[in-house]
């Protein structure tokens, strides 16, 4: 099973992943676009933060309409078109990995780009890798 492997020890905090992610989700190359990956530097360690695709996810528990579903191929949790925009998942995620997009009126989360993570493809140091684990 392929996973998105994150290694803070390799990260240079260049934030290419954020740009690539925003481009993937909005279709326009904008640094302020909606990105679901974020790199934070804590005590000199740059940490790329994105959805952990939890097995027993809080977002799934919080959703009143069962809109967040597992993609069996990529094992990503995806926001489906069932989303009604109630923000419950965004507030429930304990890792802050759930976002909301006002333009689409829907929650936005990492869906591993349908099995081809754009962030990993643009990471210059392989701090983000899409590989067998």
């Amino acid at each position: 099973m392929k996973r998105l492997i994150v290694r803070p020890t390799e990260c240079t905090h260049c934030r290419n992943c954020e740009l690539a992610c925003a481009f993937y989700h909005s279709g326009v190359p904008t640094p302020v676009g909606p990105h679901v990956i974020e790199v934070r530097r804590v005590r000199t360690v740059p940490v790329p933060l994105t959805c952990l695709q939890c097995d027993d996810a809080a977002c799934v528990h919080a959703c009143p309409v069962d809109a967040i579903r597992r993609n069996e191929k990529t094992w990503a949790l995806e926001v489906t078109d069932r989303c009604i925009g109630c923000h419950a998942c965004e507030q429930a995620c304990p890792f802050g990995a759930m976002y909301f997009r006002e333009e689409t009126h829907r929650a936005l989360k990492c869906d591993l780009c349908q099995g081809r993570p754009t962030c990993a493809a643009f990471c210059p140091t392989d701090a983000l890798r899409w590989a067998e684990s």
Partner: protein
Amino acid sequence: MQPANEKTFAMTINGRRLTANDGESVLTVAKRAGIDIPTLCHHPAIEDFGSCRLCLVEVTKPEWKGWQGLMTACLYPAAKDLIVETQSERVRHVRRNVLDLLLARCPESQVIQQLASDYGVTRSSFTPRADADLCILCGLCVRVCESAVTAAIATLNRGRRREVGPPFGDVPPDCVGCTACAHVCPTGHIIFTEDKGVRTIWNKKFELLRCQKCHEPLLTVEQRDHLLKTRDLDVSYYELCPGCKRQRTAETFADVVLKTHPHFVPKQMGGSSGIPTVPFVQHKEVRP
């Protein structure tokens, strides 16, 4: 007669042979096949209602001897050997009429204007409604609130005075201020405002809970209490804002890195590190 255990069957939409499952609507089958049927009051999470009348399609069966019925695709169940036309002249004609009426009801709505112009209606042939708002009375907000939240709003009055709102046009006692009604509204009629940690919707003011660390406004107290009652997450999930939760996660991971790499020095670009100075690298091909 179709055997009772038959769960999937074949039907035709616009001349294409498609597989459908028992219990699906014509709209679901068409959507899955990428066939476009315009809708306004349809939402995948909510039971269909057929109020906007835009998804009307022509349906027939070989044994119906040429009779063709106009049905709402969202409500009409898929059936074996059903033949559906979504863009016939008759369908386009009734959709034009529907849009003509909708345009008279909501002349200011950009969504309706766009749909109408797609069907060649630029001006309504009816007299536009005086002091029109953006509500097409599709009831999607009412159905979303009823099935997913607290049924705080409903349609009021009858006929020309019919409108969507809280009971008796008063401040809604059951509303939790989740704004789902505003987000599903197809024409953007329902609006809410947020100012200095106070959210206003349906004339009800909600004091927003604040993040315990940075005091950013989060969700309404009423929505949190509703989620605590209906979902199985405890109150600690709703205490911090997403940003502070990310910071907490980053700190946890950074601690692990510093523990496992006691002499940790962050990598840098350029120099002898072997990492290009310009971070924009050639896109690497990643195949699933």
